[in-house]
């Protein structure tokens, strides 16, 4: 072995200086723009679905929100003296698209532009830009718009044909046979709250890319399902409506505004689920997801403090404490799971009986309209009734067991929300006996006049074959034409539909429908 001379030659001449960099010298390749790009990709199915469903109405909203958000970002970066190249991180585009998906289709363009601007400027940049905002920017803008323009932000159109309609959560509370329509998204709603399928595809993509943590959507959806089962709401309907999927997969999972730790994310998701159901079940607002997420955003710093990880190499004493804490958590988890299951089973066993009780009570209620009635009997007409008439319909009987009247509840759409009407017809189904307003959200002092007994008295003994036209055979209410028309049309349409569904032959008045005790 002899000494090599290789390096001698190399020591001659100019020595090359190498770059000095701190370790580590490699990177996973993830970056803000790559992640935001993945989020945009994951939103493509929902975006396409909304354009298929709502056509140009959706496309215009999406474009306007994107333009608003990106322009807002450009302006803010300029004012804050930041390099305009930061736009390339795509975060403004994500915010814009997410906002678009929370908007009703056919929202005026200027509202969308304003929304995009507000999302980026007030939702993000005022706090110091990307990574510093406490609240989800898209939801900040949505809530801003809902509060500022309540009428525009609740103007829904039906898919495909674009006619005005109501949004599902405001109309009913169960899926019934229409489940698949919800899954595909063929119903009215915000752009992105419609197609469960499209949202799931995007959500699964983000989960597979490990960009979002499964703990957040899983805990939100799980909590909503359990709470709705326990309180007697249709869990599937609660999961598939009101933007819950959009919120659970795309809004609540926002990195910046959700907790750092995995445990914290679990708490966060449970909180969002609980708040959503509280708002939906007991609040006045049918759609609670946005508020629930924003509220939990506010709690995120607290959750972060509560769930700070303990370094692995603790002293032995700390290990013991940690173990007992784990035990407490596990115990708590088991207890709540067991009680949840028991409650669910109990509710499952009780619900037919509860339902029967409720129907009986309702039947009793109708007897106010029929003071001479001896009994009432529910008739299940589920498939034969239009959407806006509640099942079952009640047949009111006299002492001899003869049918002396028909009673039911209908919910026509009023000026601001649904009007819940109780309607009584005579036994032949030819005349209205009485109309009562059970619930409404019409303007106080104007639309609310529809509830006055003097006003409603005009419907007594009115033939259902009448035209029910305001100013012609029905009195209007000045300043509340929409409300009054809603009542008149609601009574006429429902009465005719119920009579038809009951198959009452006006000639002999014999019913062929089979009475049942309901489901």
């Amino acid at each position, binding site marked *: *072995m*002899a*000494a*090599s*001379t*290789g*390096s*001698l030659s*190399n*020591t001659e001449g100019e*020595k*090359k*200086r*190498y*770059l*000095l*960099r*701190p*370790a*580590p*010298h*490699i*990177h*996973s390749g*993830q*970056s*803000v723009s*790559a*992640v935001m790009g993945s989020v945009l990709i994951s939103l493509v199915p929902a975006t396409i679905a909304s354009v298929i469903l709502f056509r140009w109405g959706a496309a215009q909203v999406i474009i306007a929100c994107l333009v608003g958000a990106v322009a807002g970002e450009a302006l803010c970066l300029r004012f804050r003296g930041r390099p305009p190249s930061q736009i390339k991180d795509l975060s403004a585009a994500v915010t814009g698209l997410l906002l678009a998906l929370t908007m009703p289709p056919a929202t005026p363009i200027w509202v969308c532009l304003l929304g995009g601007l507000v999302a980026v400027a007030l939702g993000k940049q005022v706090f110091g*830009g*990307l*990574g*510093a905002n406490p609240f989800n920017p898209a939801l900040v803008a949505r809530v801003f718009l809902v509060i500022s323009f309540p009428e525009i932000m609740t103007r829904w159109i039906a898919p495909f044909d674009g006619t005005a309609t109501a949004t599902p959560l405001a109309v009913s509370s169960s899926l019934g046979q229409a489940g698949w329509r919800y899954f595909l998204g063929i119903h009215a709603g915000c752009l992105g709250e419609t197609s469960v399928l499209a949202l799931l595809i995007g959500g699964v993509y983000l989960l597979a890319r490990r960009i979002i*943590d499964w703990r957040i959507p899983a805990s939100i959806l799980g909590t909503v399902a359990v709470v709705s089962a326990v309180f007697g709401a249709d869990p599937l309907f609660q999961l598939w409506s009101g933007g819950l999927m959009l919120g659970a997969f795309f809004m609540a999972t926002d*990195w*910046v*505004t*959700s*907790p*750092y*730790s*995995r445990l914290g*994310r679990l708490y966060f998701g449970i909180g969002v689920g609980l708040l959503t159901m509280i708002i939906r079940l007991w609040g006045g607002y049918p759609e609670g997801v946005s508020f629930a997420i924003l509220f939990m955003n506010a709690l995120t710093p607290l959750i972060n403090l509560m769930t*700070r*990880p*303990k*370094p*692995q*190499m*603790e*002293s*032995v004493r700390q*290990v013991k404490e940690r173990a007992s804490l784990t035990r407490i958590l596990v115990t708590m988890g088991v207890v709540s799971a067991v009680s949840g299951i028991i409650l669910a089973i109990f509710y499952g066993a009780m619900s037919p009986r509860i339902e029967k009780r409720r129907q009986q009570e309702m039947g009793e209620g109708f007897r106010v309209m029929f003071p001479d009635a001896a009994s009432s009997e529910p008739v299940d007409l589920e498939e034969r009734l239009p959407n806006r008439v509640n099942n079952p319909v009640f047949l009111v009987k006299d002492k001899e067991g003869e049918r002396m009247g028909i009673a039911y509840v209908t919910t026509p759409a009023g000026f601001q929300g649904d009007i819940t009407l109780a309607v009584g017809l005579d036994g032949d189904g030819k005349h209205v006996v009485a109309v009562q307003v059970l619930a409404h959200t019409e303007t106080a002092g104007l639309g609310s006049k529809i509830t006055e007994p003097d006003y409603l008295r005009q419907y007594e003994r009115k033939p259902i074959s009448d035209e029910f036209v305001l100013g012609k055979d029905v009195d209007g209410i000045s300043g509340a034409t929409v409300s009054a028309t809603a009542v008149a049309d609601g009574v006429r349409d429902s009465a005719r539909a119920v009579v038809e569904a009951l198959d009452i032959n006006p000639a002999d008045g014999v019913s062929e429908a089979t009475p049942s005790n309901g489901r």
Partner: protein
Amino acid sequence: MRLYKVRGGIAIPDHKEGAHSPLEELTPPAVLTVSLLQHRGASARPVVKRGELVRRGQCIGEPVGLGAPIHSPVSGKVIEVASRLHPSGFYCESVVIENDGEYVDADRPEGIADPTSVKPEVIRRRVHEAGVVGLGGAMFPTSVKLAPEGPVDTLIINGSECEPYLTCDHRVMLECTEDLIYGWQALRYALGAKRVLIAVEANKPDAIAKLKQATTGMSDVEVVTVPAVYPQGAEDVLIRRVTGRRLRARGLPAEVGCMVHNVATVLAVARALRDGEPLIKRAVTVAGSGVQRAANFWVAIGTPAGHLLDHVGRRDDIRQLIFGGPMMGQSVSSEDVPVIKGTNGLLAIAEDDVLEFTTGVCLRCGWCLDVCPVGLEPYHLARLAEAGEWHEAEAAGAMLCYECGSCSYRCPGRRPLLPLIKLAKGEILREQAAARTRSQTSGGVA
């Protein structure tokens, strides 16, 4: 064998292109620079002078306090004892030796055929005299680890080699299996350990098969396949993985009855005892996008990086040189920087693959927290470091950081997490040292 769960960790593309290149004997260069800082502790004191003739294996540096002696890797003449660049990036006192190409050996102690035939103290002394230190990178004197504070029942041989690109330990396991068996039997005997666990990452199936075959019938030795998760080779992670035992904060492995030695160290121990050979060469991987081929060499300590590059063929566009792996390795400015005992790899990185230093914003994704094997909150530590809150950083556990770099690797915001944490650690150490001096001087006055 049961494996235990360890928090954090990341899967990194392993780039073990050199795994199939057998170890080649690399002819030492004409001039070698032997650093006198090749162990944890203070620099060794040179015991040779300029102009002196040295033989191969002759002691040229004596430790001052904690440390290990340093030997001449070749025979020849001491040209200079002077300050030279060290892989750490600092200048350190070094002995520059001109290779005479004769390789005349100094007197060696007699080899020990059966390590269990001598007293444990003899093994400890011989390991110390041979200058053996932890070759996994820490360079902690091995003889010190042979006199643990408490009883050790489990000797763990670390063959995980979790850093991407590096393959020298892998080759040692394949090519020097018999030496390793001798080495760990000696270590086990000296420690009085009951069992030996050889932990190898699952991405080295050939090494696992070879070791399993070589150890069949040894009841107290077990080859354990550990998952290929970075940083599997970190001492605490490995102990936890194979024994389930947890170390106290900054505690020593012996406190939980364990001792961990890297395979390269075990080999050095075997050579020191059986052949009386001091630690003057080691296995080194040369790889990276800046070289023509990935290779593994037996390299004389003191060989400059450029000499290794010459042997694999460089590409024109090398812009970065790294001593060690891509995760924890040190970037050096010159190819004059010599291989030291702790050098397990040399990476040459081409222009396009140099990772730019970035200072992005935190997106609060929590990924750094998920991957940290210690369970620290890197985003928080980094923020404290930026604010200069050293005390807060210390309270948040900055000193527990392994410096594994997983957090930086994973961060989508491309925050310089590890550099900031290192900055905080440096400042905390400085303050601690200052506090010590203060208390000493005030004590002197009183």
